[in-house]
């Protein structure tokens, strides 16, 4: 029981990170119907930028960890979203009306470029960061096993919750969100009604990059090791999460992320850690077989 609870906590933390990345995939897919393959690399850049910003902030600002973290958070969001914006501007926008596979290939190219750029700029070695947070809450002490929730896990879950609330507000209550939903439903019609579609698409990429950058910051703090290759697997898993939840659906992406995190944590905890990725993809295949539109996706009726 204690072990189960501990895995549940670990899984939810991991799932929150996947969910944040998955939202970027699902939004871009919803609005322009492409798999933004480079999104995982944006998350990787977020992790690197957050590490650099954190080191810079502690060097300049002194010893207060919370202040340094707040500075890091904002610096990471700004710089990473700029990367996301630039990628869309250079590699995807000219291909808006191209055949369906062209943006995908372009995205794979961007992903290769960003990965190798980071490797050249920062070196191929794994970058370690000593734990920033110490201690936590002990939830349960049973026999020889202690269930604990450390401060960082609390911060991650709280921050994810705050971001989700803010994000939901943005999508449902603001003019930008309304324009975004209109563009998602019908791009041509939205343009006819005076919505600047290019600007909305850019805004979507920026939002996705902001969420991915926060995920990058979280992963840097949580695992304490990053390298230039982390974007690939996290990207695939986050995309899996988006598909699992029903692509195009924002709550679905979060739900999918949490599920993937839980599956991974429980599989590693109870079965074998080597095959945790196999389990993730296996479950994805099962879900798609029985519910091809994902858990929360709307069935896609094709009209002629």
């Amino acid at each position, binding site marked *: 029981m204690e072990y189960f609870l501990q895995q549940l906590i670990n899984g939810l933390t991991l799932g929150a990170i996947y969910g944040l990345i998955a939202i970027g995939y699902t939004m871009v897919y919803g609005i322009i119907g492409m798999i933004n393959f480079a999104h995982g690399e944006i998350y990787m850049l977020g992790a690197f930028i957050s590490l650099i910003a954190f080191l810079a902030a502690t*060097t300049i600002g002194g010893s207060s960890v919370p202040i340094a973290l707040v500075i890091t958070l904002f610096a990471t969001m700004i710089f990473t979203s700029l990367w996301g914006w630039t990628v869309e501007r250079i590699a995807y926008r000219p291909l808006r009306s191209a055949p369906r596979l062209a943006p995908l290939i372009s995205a794979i190219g961007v992903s290769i470029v960003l990965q190798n750029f980071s490797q050249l700029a920062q070196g191929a070695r794994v970058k370690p960061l000593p734990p920033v947070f110490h201690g936590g809450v002990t939830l349960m002490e049973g026999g020889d096993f202690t269930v604990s929730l450390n401060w960082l896990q609390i911060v991650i879950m709280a921050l994810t919750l705050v971001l989700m609330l803010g994000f939901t507000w943005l999508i449902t209550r603001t003019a930008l969100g309304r324009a975004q939903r209109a563009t998602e439903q019908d791009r041509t019609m939205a343009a006819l009604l005076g919505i600047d579609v290019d600007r909305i698409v850019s805004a979507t990429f920026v939002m996705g990059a902001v969420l991915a950058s926060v995920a990058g910051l979280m992963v840097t703090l949580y695992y304490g090791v990053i390298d230039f290759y982390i974007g690939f697997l996290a990207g695939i898993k986050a995309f899996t999460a988006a598909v699992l939840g029903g692509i195009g659906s924002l709550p679905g992406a979060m739900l999918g992320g949490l599920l993937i995190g839980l599956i991974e944590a429980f599989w590693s905890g109870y079965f074998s850690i080597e095959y945790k990725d196999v389990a993730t993809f296996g479950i994805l295949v099962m879900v798609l*077989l029985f519910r091809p539109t994902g858990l929360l996706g709307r069935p896609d009726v094709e009209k002629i």
Partner: protein
Amino acid sequence: MLPAALRDAALAALVAGALALPMLGFRLVDSASGLTLAGRFDLVAWAAGLVFCGRLLIRLLPPLPAFPALPARLGDLRLKAGWAMAAIALILPFLPFADRNLVDKATMVLIYVMLGWGLNIVVGLAGLLDLGFVAFYAVGAYSYALLSQTFGLSFWVCLPLAGVLSAGFGLALGFPVLRLRGDYLAIVTLGFGEIIRVILQNWQDVTGGPNGISGIERPSLFGLSFKAAAPEGRQTFAEFFGLDYSADHRVIFLYFLILALALATNLFTLRIRRLPVGRAWEALRDDEIACRSLGINPTTVKLSAFALGAMFAGFAGSFFATRQGFISPESFTFIESAVILAIVVLGGMGSQIGIVLAALLLVGLPEWFRELQQYRMLAFGGAMVLIMLWKPSGLLSHREPTIRLGNAP
């Protein structure tokens, strides 16, 4: 015009500088007291300056003349080009400037041409987006390696077996997932590719794990081996033809082997496009609903494309294993799938010659720049983006309809 261009370039430079500031401006350095930062802001200035000049040039120079449109009726020209290419490929090893190195590189390119032609059946003809094609390549390679090492079977027996096994994997995977639509299929195939790689990496007893399998048997020509000394009761190639032994013989033999395999793939594709199933693939790609209403069963048609594509990947895989003599999961990562897909899409989906050109461009060129190892992949990714921006529908995208009512206009 000039002030506007200057302002535009300055803006671009500003963005470039901001992009470069964290990633280039600081370098993470491992030191005794943990990670520290080292500044190198000159690089940021360089990046901003380069972008400024580049942007200014693009704005001020007249736009490049448009790529001349290809003539409408290309069929004849393309056929000639195809024969010319095949002829060059046939005599390549005997040309005066061809050394072992060149033939080796040409072999590598041909492997990708063959893989591209195989994937073309799936992506170009049937329109199924497959991001895990490398899985079937891996199945073929490991099938040959394991069959040959466990049962001592020769390459020629294993080659069809590897193809059948790969096709079987294709069927087994395709059967449940081919009902899915485009992008779902992409992610499931991507996942399948990763699953195969993870299994190869972790199933130590059978696959040797990360260490892979080494000492894989080399192929022979009708029992004539290409070793320096033949095994008991056999002859070597050099002895049989009364030549001096040379390691080059095997390299050239492997080259012709892959050339034959690749041409067989091409011939197969060209012929099957004229059969009902081939026509059904293309019809299904263009309009699935119309096909259903005409009584074509989409699942079986897609499944056949998937299995056949997988079979050719299996052939290519066992050739790869016999050429390298060593395989490990390292060779079958997602990047390989991406390269093969890029070759098909860059070539212009469905165009057989386009695939050859794209393979030469994407695999052949980087092979020459191996010395620049570090920047090779960077340039590769950049080239993928640039070619797509330049010609979004591929290098040779124009395609004659396979069938036409009446004479062409």
